[in-house]
């Protein structure tokens, strides 16, 4: 299916009715929300799940004997199964609820603190978010492992020849994002995983930017760790997940100590609970987990093929419209790309653009997007970034173009 509009099940106007926030005004103008790569908006189906949780069965889970606790536990574990099925994990206990992608990465990095030895090499890609760089730098400080960088090319793609060369160093661990948050590049993770496994390296994929657009199959990918956040895919903030192969979850030590994660506690010795609880210390974000499940259900009901096809249409349209603006330069022009456009306009600071178009009701992101190495690569201080979701429209892109033209008039 190349064209979503041919599919009668995808009706963007109907979808927009699910998102109350899209109907508000900002600075007196109808909101155009193009900051989806930072966080997505939440449909009524998810909002109602949250309201329903707090209105009818809010309780602590897993140990309560009473009815509410039972209901909350059931819903929470059902959400885990929903997420398991979505990502096609082999077992539900391979899905660990976390507070989000950053938490998930830190959990894995902490675990490798007891596995890596001095001089071991680990590989990071040049396209990473700071969240997928800093925890590994901290790990290297602790273990004296060596962090090497897979470089990027002008198109905003990973340099796969350099990657092959780096594999000769026999890395123990490789971590790459599925999709770059700053540029939208879709990385060839299947090949990266396969090649890394050939030299015995484990692979962590940061899927925060991919999950709103793609339905990853962790078994097909054969990935060791896959991490994401609910709030990028129509869920609430403060909840996310770590998928890890059972082998790794058995092998890695717990990240945090506390309730929920123990089997027996005496002052002499504590034994840890089985999976997934070993990694879920303390009362979890119960409502968040349940709402995460609802968000996954919501997106699946629309269908990821429909979403991808429609967003691709938006991307092509926006790329053509924006490219026609004089002096506008787009960063990241990989053929494999999701609906993100990072750009600058000649002699105008991205911050100024963002400020003016906000006055016209349009929300975009400006700055470094937590990817300073990418900005350094292009020799720029930042970009303006418009990121589109399946609930955006071409009319909204027209409004962006119109607003940018107005901003250029004011700012030059």
């Amino acid at each position, binding site marked *: 299916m190349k064209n979503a509009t041919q599919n009668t099940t995808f009706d963007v106007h109907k979808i927009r009715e699910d998102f109350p926030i899209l109907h508000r005004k900002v600075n007196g103008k109808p909101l155009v929300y193009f900051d989806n790569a930072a966080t997505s908006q939440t449909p009524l189906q998810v909002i109602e799940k949250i309201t329903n949780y707090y209105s009818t069965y809010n309780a602590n889970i897993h140990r309560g004997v009473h009815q509410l606790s039972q209901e909350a536990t059931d819903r929470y574990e059902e959400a885990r199964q929903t997420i398991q099925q979505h990502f096609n994990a082999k077992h539900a206990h391979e899905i660990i609820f976390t507070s989000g992608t950053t938490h998930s990465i830190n959990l894995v990095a902490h675990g490798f603190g007891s596995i890596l030895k001095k001089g071991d090499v680990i590989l990071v890609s040049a396209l990473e978010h700071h969240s997928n760089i800093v925890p590994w730098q901290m790990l290297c400080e602790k273990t004296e492992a060596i962090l090497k960088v897979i470089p990027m090319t002008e198109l905003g793609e990973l340099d796969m020849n350099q990657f092959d060369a780096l594999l000769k160093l026999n890395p123990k661990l490789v971590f790459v994002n599925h999709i770059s948050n700053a540029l939208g590049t879709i990385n060839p993770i299947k090949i990266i995983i396969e090649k890394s496994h050939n030299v015995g390296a484990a692979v962590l994929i940061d899927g925060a930017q991919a999950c709103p657009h793609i339905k990853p199959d962790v078994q097909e990918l054969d990935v060791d760790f896959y991490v994401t956040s609910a709030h990028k895919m129509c869920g609430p903030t403060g909840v996310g997940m770590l998928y890890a192969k059972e082998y790794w979850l058995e092998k890695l030590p717990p990240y945090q100590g506390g309730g929920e994660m123990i089997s027996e506690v005496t002052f002499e010795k504590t034994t840890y609970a089985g999976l997934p609880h070993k990694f879920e210390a303390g009362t979890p974000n119960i409502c968040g987990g349940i709402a995460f499940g609802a968000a996954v259900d919501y997106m699946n009901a629309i269908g990821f093929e429909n979403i991808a096809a429609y967003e691709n249409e938006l991307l092509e349209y926006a790329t053509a419209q924006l490219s026609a603006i004089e002096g506008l330069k787009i960063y990241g022009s990989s053929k494999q790309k999701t609906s993100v456009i990072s750009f600058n306009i000649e002699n105008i600071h991205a911050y100024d653009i963002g400020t*003016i178009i906000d006055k016209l009701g349009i929300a975009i992101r400006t700055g470094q997007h937590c990817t300073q190495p990418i900005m350094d690569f292009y020799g720029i201080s930042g970009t303006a970034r418009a990121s589109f979701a399946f609930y955006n429209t071409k009319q909204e892109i027209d409004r962006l173009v119109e607003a940018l033209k107005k901003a250029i008039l004011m700012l030059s």
Partner: protein
Amino acid sequence: MKIETIQNELIDEFSMFEDWMERYEYMIELGKSLPLINSKYKTDENIIKGCQSKVWLHSEFENDKVIFSADSDAIITKGIVAILVRVFSNQSPQAILSANTNFIDAIGLKEHLSPTRANGLVSMIKQIKMYALAYQTQQ
């Protein structure tokens, strides 16, 4: 001129504008008319942290007055910088330290005081007051 007088002047000037576009256009004009900072002061040490755009702020102390010069790579931020320089430059440390900043609200730029704005207006004012404090203790 006293700080309060300058602030009232600004309030008067901005009160002539009917909408945000005119206010922003005037702010951009102010930014463009900001005297150039000596390029030797555009150092990393003079960059104010907490701004999405770069802001350089340099101070000197002459005849018991603090002289500020500044620049920014973003034009709206530069306008804000120009307003602050106009209000606070060439004043005594005591006057700077005791000045309030209510005028920012009065000229319709309150939104820039929000920490989420990332333009560093709050950091700029803090830095200006820090310089004043340092010169005051030198006196």
